[in-house]
């Protein structure tokens, strides 16, 4: 099958992850991965983002498929259940709003900027090397640290399930995928 330009979007995903090590402010670009799928699902009522443009999914596909880093086993039944998928979406939302709250606290001046990336919502990794000060408010940087934490955490989870199960296992419980599917369902009714 002939490859199209959008089949190379995994390069963008990989670049994004690397840029987060160079300058944390690049983390803001990750909002594209949030807004584009939402806009497509709301306006067109399709999951074209997942189906075609998701660089993260492609990255797992490349690593797990072409590079053979996946056991290619079936994902456990509970992981594809609606309860788990919706539960994970809610949990993800809660963590996201907590991150927004932290950003607000820095913006309001009641909390200092914390130059850490929180992995798996638990482990605080020092990340000061990727922050070189900014012309903007410290809150802008706080959001970048928080958002990069979300992106890195979900990549790590995706890599773990890629190795254990099929390459794109992440797609099964990806909160964006679950959310856009729900929007599409609502639109179709």
């Amino acid at each position, binding site marked *: 099958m002939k490859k199209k330009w959008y089949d190379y979007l995994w390069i963008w995903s990989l670049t994004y992850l690397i840029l987060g090590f160079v300058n944390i402010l690049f983390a803001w670009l990750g909002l594209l991965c949030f807004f584009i799928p939402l806009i497509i699902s709301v306006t067109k009522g399709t*999951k074209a983002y997942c189906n075609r443009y998701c660089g993260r999914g492609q990255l797992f*596909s490349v690593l797990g498929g072409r590079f053979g880093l996946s056991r290619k086993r079936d994902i456990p039944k509970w992981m594809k259940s609606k309860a788990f998928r919706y539960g994970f979406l809610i949990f993800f939302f809660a963590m996201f709003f907590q991150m927004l709250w932290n950003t607000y606290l820095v913006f309001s001046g009641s909390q200092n900027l914390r130059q850490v990336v929180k992995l798996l919502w638990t482990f605080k990794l020092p990340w000061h090397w990727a922050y070189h000060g900014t012309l903007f408010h410290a809150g802008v940087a706080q959001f970048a640290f928080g958002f990069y934490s979300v992106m890195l955490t979900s990549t790590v989870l995706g890599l773990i399930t890629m190795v254990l199960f099929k390459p794109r296992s992440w797609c099964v419980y990806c909160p964006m995928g679950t959310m856009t*599917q729900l929007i599409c369902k609502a639109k179709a009714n």
Partner: protein
Amino acid sequence: MNTVKKRRRAFVDQTLCVACGCCVKVCPLKAIEIFKGIMAQVHEDKCVGCGRCAKECPASVIDIREVQA
């Protein structure tokens, strides 16, 4: 002689399908598509049951069954 023609075809468990579209990418006959961002749908007339989609599906919700032609 009693010959019953049988052919193979992919079946999607649409209640569990996440509509990711991995199956669409690997289908050599364009016999599967995502219906309105909700689930995958197999074109019965085109599908020959090669099983590529079933192998690719990250949720493993596609299986190949024999059907009477």
